């Protein structure tokens, strides 16, 4: 059992998402930086589908009423247990009564906390992810509050010992963020001038803590004259409404939306989307779907190798 002493800015229970209901308007939700969340679960011996805490901008303070093996990945922040500093991208034991304190992020934006056994919250429509707008999933469908109690699950895939992740497995948090994208569904609706502006400009991420969408400051793309009838829209879509301002679609977005899409951010770079901080500069570079899929599979292969190495005690 864990008591939330201070919850941080926006801390929610998430897993890899709620799939199968988008046709009924149910967003997928789930972690944004799936690489960091999966790595954290692997470090503590969980299935990568186990529920974790996603913490935005700052982590908060938690009292562990029982011993737990914990891993924290994603952004960089001060991590202490009973005042003793702990390494990120590593797993460590918290003794009964131990206080885990996570400071404000110093690099990146989202932290992921996995516990051996997973977070024990009810499955709602096949997932433990919190979907805030409908108040469902996670802990009572909301973000964590001071005084909340979290229970640790008993779904342990493999026993693990405290361990630090090889540095090579951490993805680089390099600024300015260059996001690789594939063509959007209405890419051909945009003028050559708009496309040039999109691929050659530096955009700035506006402050936003919701998980619906990001807005970008930068050149407006105003060549779209046609109205788009709402169509299914996926995570990472770069949308351009009539105002010409760019939006990036996040996990809690509506399943169908009526905005022209100039591009889709590739899955292998969702971690950059998750870790870019409001005010950060972003650029876009075009790639093709095959390269994008290869980059995703390479990340998955690295995670799979980590799991095998840990299972074989060869790290």
């Amino acid at each position, binding site marked *: 059992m864990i008591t939330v002493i201070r919850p941080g800015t926006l801390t929610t229970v998430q897993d890899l998402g709620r799939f199968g209901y*988008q046709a009924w308007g149910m967003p997928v939700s789930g972690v944004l930086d799936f690489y960091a969340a999966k790595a954290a679960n692997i470090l503590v011996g969980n299935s990568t589908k186990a529920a974790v805490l996603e913490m935005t901008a700052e982590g908060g303070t938690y009292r562990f009423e029982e011993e737990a093996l914990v891993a924290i990945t994603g952004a960089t922040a001060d991590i202490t247990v009973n005042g003793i500093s702990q390494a990120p991208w590593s797993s460590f034991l918290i003794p009964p009564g131990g206080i885990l304190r996570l400071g404000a992020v110093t690099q990146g934006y989202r932290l992921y906390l996995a516990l051996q056994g997973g977070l024990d919250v009810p499955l709602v429509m096949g997932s433990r992810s919190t979907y805030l707008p409908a108040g469902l999933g996670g802990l009572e469908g909301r973000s964590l509050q001071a005084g909340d109690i979290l229970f640790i699950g008993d779904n342990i895939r493999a026993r693990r010992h405290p361990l630090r992740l090889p540095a090579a497995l951490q993805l680089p948090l390099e600024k300015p963020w260059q996001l690789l994208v594939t063509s959007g569904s209405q890419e051909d609706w945009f003028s050559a001038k708009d496309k040039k502006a999109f691929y050659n400009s530096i955009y700035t991420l506006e402050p936003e803590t919701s998980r619906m969408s990001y807005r970008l400051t930068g050149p407006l793309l105003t060549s779209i004259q046609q109205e788009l009838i709402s*169509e299914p829209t996926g995570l990472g879509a770069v949308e351009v409404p009539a105002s010409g301002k760019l939006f990036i679609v996040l996990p809690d977005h509506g*399943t169908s939306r009526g905005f022209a899409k100039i591009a889709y951010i590739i899955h292998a770079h969702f971690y950059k989307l998750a870790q870019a901080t409001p005010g950060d500069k972003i650029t876009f570079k075009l790639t093709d*779907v095959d390269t994008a899929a290869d980059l995703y599979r390479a990340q998955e292969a690295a995670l799979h190798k980590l799991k095998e190495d840990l299972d074989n005690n060869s790290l």
Partner: protein
Amino acid sequence: MTGENFAPVLRPAGENSVLVVFGTTITPAVKEKVSSFVTAFRALAIKGVLEIVPSYCSVMIYFKMRTISYAQIKAAVEKALTEMVPVAQQTYQVLEVPTCYDGVLAPDMEAVLRLTKLSKKELIALHTSKPFMVYMIGFTPGFPYLGTMPFHLPRQTTPRPLVPSGSIGLAGNQTGIYSIDTPGEWWLIGRTPLAIFDAQRKDPFLLSPGDYVRFTPIDLEEYFELKNLLIQGYYTPRRWQEKVPS
């Protein structure tokens, strides 16, 4: 461009999904093609397909990149396009949605009557005289976009900060049912005691894309009576199969 002579096109939508577009209008003909394609694609039972998501004019297919390649999905889509046949379905699933069009449950009734120059009796008759098709479900989980009304309303300029779930709204030439408490900008002409979405229910959604809704008028007393019966589990929403004239 009409739905009749628009050749289906594949549009890019990221490395794990393909968008298939069947038209550029909100019409039964286009919606019919969307449904036919979904049926044909489902029948192929492709391994690695994560979700098939239909909308007004298009269908998105999300797939698992670890299981199937983009080229394989594209080939499957093209196969389904050649194999799709008009949905021969003669009957449709219809859900009865008892709706109270009175008092506080219909806060925008007066405004809508002014805009449409209809009497309340005429508006209720238009809303209850025929079943409406679910063109799409979205906005919030379970919110059905139903069409079509014989008039066109502008959006309200200022959204209401909180629309109670069950509210029946009008916007454009469509009508819809709010599925959760949410901010909203549709004109509210009534409310149903039915919970068209409930994540805790075994079947969370009362409606699927392609179903029909028939609104039936009830008064305030019946509204609260039904609401109580629903809470106590003594009322099951009425559904039936019906031939729907196109």
